[in-house]
C-alpha cells in the first residue's frame, strides 16, 4: 500500500495551485457579486488541459481519472476558487458520455470536454420528486425521429453558461416494479420550448441555478444516451464521480479555511500573546485539521477505487459526508478564530458559508447518505 500521490499528481497539484493562486478568493467573490463569470480562470486551466484530465486520451483528454480531476478541484478550493462547474460538466457529464455514448456522440462531445470548451449542465432534481429519483415525472416520448420532453427540473446549476444539459427523464414504466424507466438526453439549452428562470440563492459563487421548464421540447433521437430505459444505471455511473468531486471541493475549502485560521492565530495577538497559544483556539483548529485530513483520505480512496474500476459507492458516500461536515467545521472555526474579522468581507470566510453549507444538502443530502450507509453498510432495514 502506498498513500503517496504519484509524481505526476504532485506536479498537477502544484501547477493548478500556481494558476489558482494568481486569481485567489477576491477574484472569485468579485465575479460572484458582480454577476460575472470566471472565464479567465476557466480558460487558463483549460488551456493547460487541467479541465479535461479525465477525458480519454483518444479524444484529446488527459487520459487519467477522477483522482486527477479531484486534485484540480481541491487545489482550486484551497485557493478560494471552488468552481462548482467541475463537479458537473467534466465529472458527471463527460463520465456518462465516455461510458455510454455512441461513437458519434463521443466524437461530437468528448474532444470539446477535453478542451473544456463545452460546458454541460446536469438535470435530475425535480420539485415534486425530491431525493426520490424514481419519482421523476419529466417525460420523454418518442415521436418519429424525435423525442418530446415535458416537465420541470429545478436547481439546475449554470444553465445560463452551458451549451447543453444532460437531462434525466422518464420514458416508460417497468411493468414488474411499477417504477419509472429512465432515459438520458443531451438537450441544447437554446431549444425551442425550453424556458429557464433564475432561482435566487444565498450562495456567493459565480454559478447560477435555474428552474427549467420543458414544454414539448423536441430532441433528436440521436441525443438519447445509450439504451432507452437504461438511464438509472447510467446516472449511477456519473453520481460517484459527482460525490467524489463534491468531497474534493469541500476538502479544498476546509484547507483554505484552516490555512487562513492558522495564519491569523499565529499573528493576531490580544493579551500580549498570539491567540493561537490559547487552547480554546488551537484545539478546535487541530480537531478540524484531523477531520479534514480524514475526509481527504477517504476522498482519495473513493477516487482511487472508482478509477480502478472497483465499486466506489460506499467510499464515495463516506467521503462526501465526511468532507462536507469537515469543511463546515473548519470554516466555522476559522470564522470564530478571526473574531469580528470573521464576518468581514475582506477576510473571505463568511461569504464561503452558503457554498460550504450547500454541500451538506447537495448533490445528495446528508440524510440520504446516512440512509445508504444504514442499509448497505450496516444492513439495517429501509425506512422508506
Amino acid at each position, binding site marked *: 500500500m502506498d498513500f503517496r500521490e504519484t*509524481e505526476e499528481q504532485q506536479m498537477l497539484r502544484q501547477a493548478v495551485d500556481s494558476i489558482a493562486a494568481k486569481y485567489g478568493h477576491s477574484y472569485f467573490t468579485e465575479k460572484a457579486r458582480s454577476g460575472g463569470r470566471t472565464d479567465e480562470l476557466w480558460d487558463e486551466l483549460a488551456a493547460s488541459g487541467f479541465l479535461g484530465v479525465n477525458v480519454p486520451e483518444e479524444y484529446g483528454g488527459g487520459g487519467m481519472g477522477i483522482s486527477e480531476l479531484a486534485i484540480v478541484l481541491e487545489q482550486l478550493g484551497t485557493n478560494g476558487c471552488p468552481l462548482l462547474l467541475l463537479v458537473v460538466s467534466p465529472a458527471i457529464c463527460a463520465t456518462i458520455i465516455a461510458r455510454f455514448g455512441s461513437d458519434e456522440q463521443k466524437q461530437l462531445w468528448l474532444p470539446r470536454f477535453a478542451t473544456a470548451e463545452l460546458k454541460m449542465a446536469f438535470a435530475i432534481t425535480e420539485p415534486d420528486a425530491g431525493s426520490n429519483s424514481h419519482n421523476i415525472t419529466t417525460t420523454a416520448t418518442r415521436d418519429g425521429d424525435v423525442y418530446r420532453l415535458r416537465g420541470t427540473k429545478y436547481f439546475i446549476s449554470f444553465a445560463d453558461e452551458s451549451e447543453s444539459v444532460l437531462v434525466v427523464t422518464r420514458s416508460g414504466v417497468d411493468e414488474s416494479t411499477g417504477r419509472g424507466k429512465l432515459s438520458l438526453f443531451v438537450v441544447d439549452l437554446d431549444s425551442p420550448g425550453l424556458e429557464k428562470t433564475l432561482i435566487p440563492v444565498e450562495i456567493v459563487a459565480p454559478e447560477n441555478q435555474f428552474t427549467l421548464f420543458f414544454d414539448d421540447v423536441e430532441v433528436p433521437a440521436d441525443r438519447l444516451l445509450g439504451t432507452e430505459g437504461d438511464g438509472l444505471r447510467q446516472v449511477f455511473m456519473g453520481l460517484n464521480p459527482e460525490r467524489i468531486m463534491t468531497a474534493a471541493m469541500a476538502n479544498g475549502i476546509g484547507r483554505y479555511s484552516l490555512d487562513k485560521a492558522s495564519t491569523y492565530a499565529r499573528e493576531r495577538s490580544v493579551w500580549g500573546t498570539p491567540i493561537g497559544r490559547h487552547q480554546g483556539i488551537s484545539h478546535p483548529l487541530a480537531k478540524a485539521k484531523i477531520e479534514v485530513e480524514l475526509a481527504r483520505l477517504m476522498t482519495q480512496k473513493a477516487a482511487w477505487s472508482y478509477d480502478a474500476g472497483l465499486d466506489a459507492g460506499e467510499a464515495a458516500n463516506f467521503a462526501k459526508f465526511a468532507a462536507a461536515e469537515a469543511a463546515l467545521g473548519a470554516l466555522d472555526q476559522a470564522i470564530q478564530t478571526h473574531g469580528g474579522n470573521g464576518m468581514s468581507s475582506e477576510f473571505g470566510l463568511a461569504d464561503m458559508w452558503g457554498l460550504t453549507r450547500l454541500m451538506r444538502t447537495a448533490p445528495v443530502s446528508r440524510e440520504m447518505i446516512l440512509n445508504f450507509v444504514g442499509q448497505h453498510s450496516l444492513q439495517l432495514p429501509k425506512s422508506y
Partner: protein
Amino acid sequence: MNVVVCVKQIPDPAAPQALDPETRTLIRQGKLILDDSDAYGVEMGLQLANQAGGDVVTLVSMAPNGETSGLRTALAMGADKAILVSDDALRGSDALSTAKVLAKAIERAEPDLIIAATESTDGYTGTFPVQLAELLGLPSITFAKKVTVGDGTVVVDRQTEAGYDEVECPLPALVTVTAGVVEPRYPSFKGIMAAKSKPLEQLTVADLGLDASQVGAAGSRQEVTDVSAADERKAGEIVQDEGDGYEYVVRFLEQLKLI
C-alpha cells in the same frame, strides 16, 4: 542548437528551514523543488530553442539524494532531457566546487548556449554561473533582460544600474537571466504526463572522471565559520497625511539617495 539550462533544486522557501549546526549550511533532506529563479531560465531556453527543428534543451542539476522533483517540473514545462549529478561525496560543496562538477557534466551535452539564473533563491552567491563559464573557457553575459539568438551569436540586453547595454557575443556562451525576463509557462497536463518518460541521466563524481578529493567539503575553499540571526526588522514610521504627505515621501527618498 543545444541549449543547456542550469536548474537548481532547492528546499521549498515557503517551508520552515534549518541550518546544520555542524556545517552551518542549509539542511536539504526533504523534498526539493525547482528554484523559481530557474523557471525563467527554463522558459528562456524553451523559447530560444526550436525543438521542432531539432534543437535540444537539456537541464543540468547537482542535488543531494538523487532528487529529481525540480527536474521533473522543468521537464514537464517542455525541456527534452536532464542530467543530474548526485553523490554523497558532493556534500559541503561551495559554489566553485559545484561549478567544477557541473562543468564536467555540461561538457557532455555539447552546449551552444548555457543559461543560468543570476542568483539562486537559497544560496544566492551569484557566483556559480561565471565560475562555470570560466572553467569551460566560454564568454559569459550576466543580468540578461532580453536574449535573442542569431547566426552563431547571442544578443543580450544586459541590465545595468542606469539602463541596459546591448551586448553581442559568439556562441557557445553562457548567459544569466534575471527574474521577469520571460513569463514562465505552467506545465500543461500533457507535459506533466510526458515528463516521466523523458531521459534523465544520473551521474556520480566517478562518472564525471573527478576524484572525490577535488569535490564536496574536501574540494571547497570556502567554509561557513559563523552564522548569526538577521537583525529584527525595525518598526516602520507612520506618517499622518495632512495634505503634505508627499513631502515626507520626497525627503525619505532623498535620504536613500534615490532621488
